[in-house]
């Protein structure tokens, strides 16, 4: 429909008439209401979040021949090299160790990248945040989408490993999917919490980076948790390690280790705590974020 002045009114008619009001901070009721609204508005814009995440990955590899499949290739090369080295060092059978290491590393990279990217999800979008009113949820989702896409490319390596070493694959593997969904929720929550924290305190990203290095070594990624059996002191480092539970609920189904109720419950508890803390952090900081850019 074109109106008198020749403008296409149909473009305007496509979206609803918004009513917007904001006011000075009035305490937690208002904070939670605004934070909830932000999350709802952000999910309504899921197409935008997806497009932004895809663009991030594509831009990183624009102009290269393999494109994002460089991710796949470099992961495969790393796992291959490390697998042979460590199998030799630890005197383990390469046929069982390499699939274990491959799955663990790829999953860890996904988890780790969500933790690390969470810190920059708001500071990296400062132009958008200061330029227009957009739900902060968009930036959090964008970072999860980006890491998810990278992980998607790496899944190919897992398939290749399973085929190459003829690992027994069954429907039990599909139980990894609910675990991965839980990870996505965790990544989303982390983005709010670390994103806000890193925007306010600019040293935090470096601290998170160092802590993740340590987490990598104290979590059974390259080694198997069973080596700690019988050493109660040493076992503490995995019993108190939230990453261990999160990693195990996805890795277990993939490599055919049984999932215990205990493990799943702990992973869910870790996630619940994370979501609650993030909700508090986001409600508290949402109105201040733009000032911290």
């Amino acid at each position, binding site marked *: 429909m074109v109106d*008198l*002045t*020749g*403008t*296409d*009114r*149909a*473009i*305007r008619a*496509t*979206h609803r*008439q*918004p*009513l*917007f*009001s*904001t*006011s*000075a*901070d009035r305490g937690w009721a208002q904070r939670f209401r605004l934070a909830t609204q932000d999350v709802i508005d952000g999910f*309504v*814009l899921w*197409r*935008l979040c997806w*497009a*932004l995440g895809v*663009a991030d990955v594509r*831009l990183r590899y*624009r102009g290269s021949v393999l494109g994002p499949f460089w991710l796949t290739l470099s992961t495969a090369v790393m796992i291959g090299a490390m697998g042979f080295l460590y199998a030799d060092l630890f005197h383990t059978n390469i046929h069982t160790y390499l699939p274990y290491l491959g799955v663990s590393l790829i999953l860890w990279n996904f988890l780790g990248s969500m933790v690390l990217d969470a810190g920059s999800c708001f500071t990296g979008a400062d*132009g*958008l*945040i*200061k*330029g*227009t*009113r*957009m739900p902060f949820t968009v930036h959090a989702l964008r970072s999860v989408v980006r890491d998810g896409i990278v992980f998607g490319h790496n899944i190919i390596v897992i398939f290749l490993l399973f085929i190459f070493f003829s690992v027994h694959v069954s429907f039990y593997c599909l139980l990894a999917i609910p675990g991965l969904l839980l990870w996505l929720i965790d990544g989303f929550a982390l983005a709010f919490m670390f994103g806000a924290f890193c925007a*306010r305190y*600019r040293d935090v990203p470096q601290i998170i980076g160092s802590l993740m290095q340590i987490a990598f070594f104290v979590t059974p990624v390259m080694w198997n948790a069973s080596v700690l059996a019988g050493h109660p002191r040493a076992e503490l480092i995995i019993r108190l390690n939230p990453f261990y539970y999160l990693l195990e609920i996805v890795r277990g189904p993939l490599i055919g280790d049984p999932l215990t109720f205990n493990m799943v419950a702990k992973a869910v508890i870790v996630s619940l705590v994370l979501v609650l803390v993030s909700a508090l952090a986001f409600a508290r900081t949402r*109105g*201040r974020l*733009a*000032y*911290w850019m």
Partner: protein
Amino acid sequence: MTHLSSFNISVDFPLYHSDNRSLKKSVLGAAAGRFGIDRNQRPVVQALRDISFTLRSGDRLGLIGPNGSGKTTLLRALSGIYQPASGTLSIEGKLTSLLDSTQGMNMELTGRENIRLRGLFLGMRKPDIARLESDVESFAEIGEFIDLPVRNYSSGMIVRLAFAMATAAQPEILLMDEWIMAGDTAFLEKAKRRVETMVRHADILVLASHSSAIIAQWCNRVIWLEHGKILADGRPLDVFSEYLPPEQFKELIGSVRMAPPIAEVGSAERLQASD
């Protein structure tokens, strides 16, 4: 009904990344000026103080004032980007803010990809995005550059693209900072016509600028900001007669005669003339 009202809005910028103690001393020492202490005893810059005004359909507000008087901050606060330290803002209507020319654009993506992202941000589906794309393309007139990464654009081209994107989606409230002046004369004329059409739909424009000629042409109300406070609020020429030195004001009167201001809503003659 489209409206925008700001009631006693104040905005404070916390001074985080600085030495708090010595700063506090100097802040407390400075009796006047714009430094202050917020509720939590942190030093702040008082960017805006008790800004109140109401805009209704057809209002085109110009913001004037020296550098650092709070024009851009006010635009950001009106966009809902900064939650105010006190006061209330209420808006009815679709709002687009053009605060800096590259805002919201990803410099590595092509113009077309940026238009698509904007469409998604506005909640559009494929057919609408296609329409948005062709509208922006024809208005911006940047030719084949539309398919090149934005970082290869000249600043004038970025302005064209940004303005086209912001106005193609037909905002009911448009907030613009002065960077729009980076466009050439032909583009400014075109932009003015577009704003004119917009305003005919009985919408709201808020424009911050140092160019009194542009403000006098585009706006029918002017707010003069100084040190974050409203110093004067009224019809453009009334405010300018106070704001500008006499000889510059005379020049302005001359230039207004050369290029008449945007027509008032409902002015029958101009509607016919452009149809």
